[in-house]
């Protein structure tokens, strides 16, 4: 849906965002200041900033956290995220296509996917360890398992919503059965698949702490977990903010991709 009279004031948007962020920080500062909740739970912006400086290695007085700088923690987590999401998204698209296109697989695989996507990661973490050890693999697998279902569900549903006439048209134009998924279904379903990917990346993010329960340092999730157990809430909040900001960044990328790749949304 587009505004009937579109008017894009990027400057205004940036201003609004800035105001919103400034407002949020101000509220945070006030809440921390008023000590409505104990400082262990709501640390002040100042102490979080201080932790940022200390752990990022930007100032001399800190040497990171648990032997790694903030950047190293973040990078380690992002690397896992990237691999896990890549496999999860790829697998989700393939599974979703199979389920959406092949009735037999919908009957058999559909329930399997639904079953698997309800399973709580905390319950099967030890299985991942026994299968994949304690290094990168179990973390990547967990992130994969978190990212896959939203994409699979969105893809399967999107496939069912592809106008049958597109498929008929393509078949009449000589596209073989094997080409339909890639040449018709995937592009036609792209908008909803991209929505599914956006959801999936978010879900993967929420799983990063659980994934880094297993030998998770370096890693932002491991850092958060560690800090939380020692009630170093300023570090926890620092980690949360970093996660959120990087999440914002990737979501913005995905939304950009969505706008570029599926410009016909709301107009076709």
């Amino acid at each position, binding site marked *: 849906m587009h505004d009937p009279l579109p008017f894009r004031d990027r400057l205004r948007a940036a201003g609004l965002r800035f105001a919103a962020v400034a407002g949020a920080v101000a509220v945070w500062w006030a809440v921390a200041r008023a000590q409505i909740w104990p400082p262990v739970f709501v640390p002040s912006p100042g102490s979080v900033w201080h932790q940022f400086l200390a752990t990022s290695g930007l100032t001399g007085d800190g040497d990171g956290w648990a032997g790694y700088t903030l950047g190293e923690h973040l990078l380690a987590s992002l690397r896992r995220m990237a691999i896990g999401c890549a496999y999860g998204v790829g697998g989700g698209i393939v599974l979703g296509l199979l389920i959406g296109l092949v009735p037999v697989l919908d009957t058999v695989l559909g329930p399997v996917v639904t079953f698997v996507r309800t399973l709580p990661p905390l319950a099967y973490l030890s299985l991942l360890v026994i299968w994949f050890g304690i290094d990168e693999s179990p973390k990547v697998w967990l992130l994969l398992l978190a990212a896959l279902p939203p994409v699979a569900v969105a893809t399967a549903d999107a496939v069912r919503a592809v106008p049958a006439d597109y498929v*008929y048209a393509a078949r009449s134009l000589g596209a073989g059965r094997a080409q339909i998924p890639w040449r018709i279904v995937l592009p*036609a379903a792209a908008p909803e698949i991209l929505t599914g990917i956006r959801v999936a990346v978010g879900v993967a993010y929420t799983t990063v702490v659980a994934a880094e329960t297993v030998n998770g340092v370096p890693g932002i999730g491991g850092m958060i977990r560690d800090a939380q157990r020692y009630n170093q809430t300023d570090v926890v909040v620092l980690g949360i903010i970093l996660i959120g900001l990087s999440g914002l960044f990737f979501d913005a990328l995905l939304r950009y991709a969505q706008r570029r790749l599926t410009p016909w949304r709301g107009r076709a």
Partner: protein
Amino acid sequence: MPPELDTPVRAAADAVALTGVGHTYRAAGRDIIALDGIDLSVPAGGALAIVGPSGCGKSTLLRMVAGFLRPSAGRVLVHGAEVTAPGPDRGVVFQQPRLFPWLSVRGNIAFGLSGAFGLRNTSGGARASGLRGASGLRGAFGLGGRPRAEREARVAELLDLVGLADVARLKPYELSGGMQQRAAIARALAPGPRLLLLDEPFAALDALTRERLQDELRALWRRTGTTILLVTHSVDEAAFLGTRIVVLSARPGRIIHQEDSTLPYADQPRAEAEFTATRTRILEAVQAAVH
């Protein structure tokens, strides 16, 4: 895929044959009989024009021949084989344009020419691929699997034919209704199918563009021997293009009038005396169909 595809077409054989065909939809809890007891055939190289009141089942009939719908009763044969699925031997122009929104106009038209389809299309392609003639197009056109340059030339010619050369890079949602319809026609013509199924292809066009494209279609048909199935609301169009004209009754659609015509073979069908007579006969049949 009908096996005949790879053998030369026997000119006299029926390209399309329907025997006792009926179709019943189920909607809002009741059966809607769209078509009933249709017996119909089109000789290879013939042009069938189907006329009838709105909602009588013309699109349904076309979709069954295209392989999009299975008849509830009867048999649908195309080139002697029962239709079970859509195929590249049958080019379709839908009543709504149904262009692929993720492709540009050029991309849509080129869709049926992509190399990967080559093997399937070659035999059918030999038929209706030439568009030269009245439109000033020339050359016998290669299809899927042909060199890129050849494919590009073919797309360019089709773009010229339907007058969309200057908007080739636009996406379908950036076109006007008539432009979309023209793009859909070009897309269906591209692979040169043996049988063209057209569902009111010129409805959204102004009178002149419409007439020009009718002329082009007739020229193409005469040159290539492509069989045509044309659904139309225009009695003129039916008389101009149909070597056989069928009038369906209101729902449930049954054939209430059928006639053969040689007008499409004439040099200037619209100028023939028979043209007006045919028009009148069809119009009367349609009038009977509605009431």
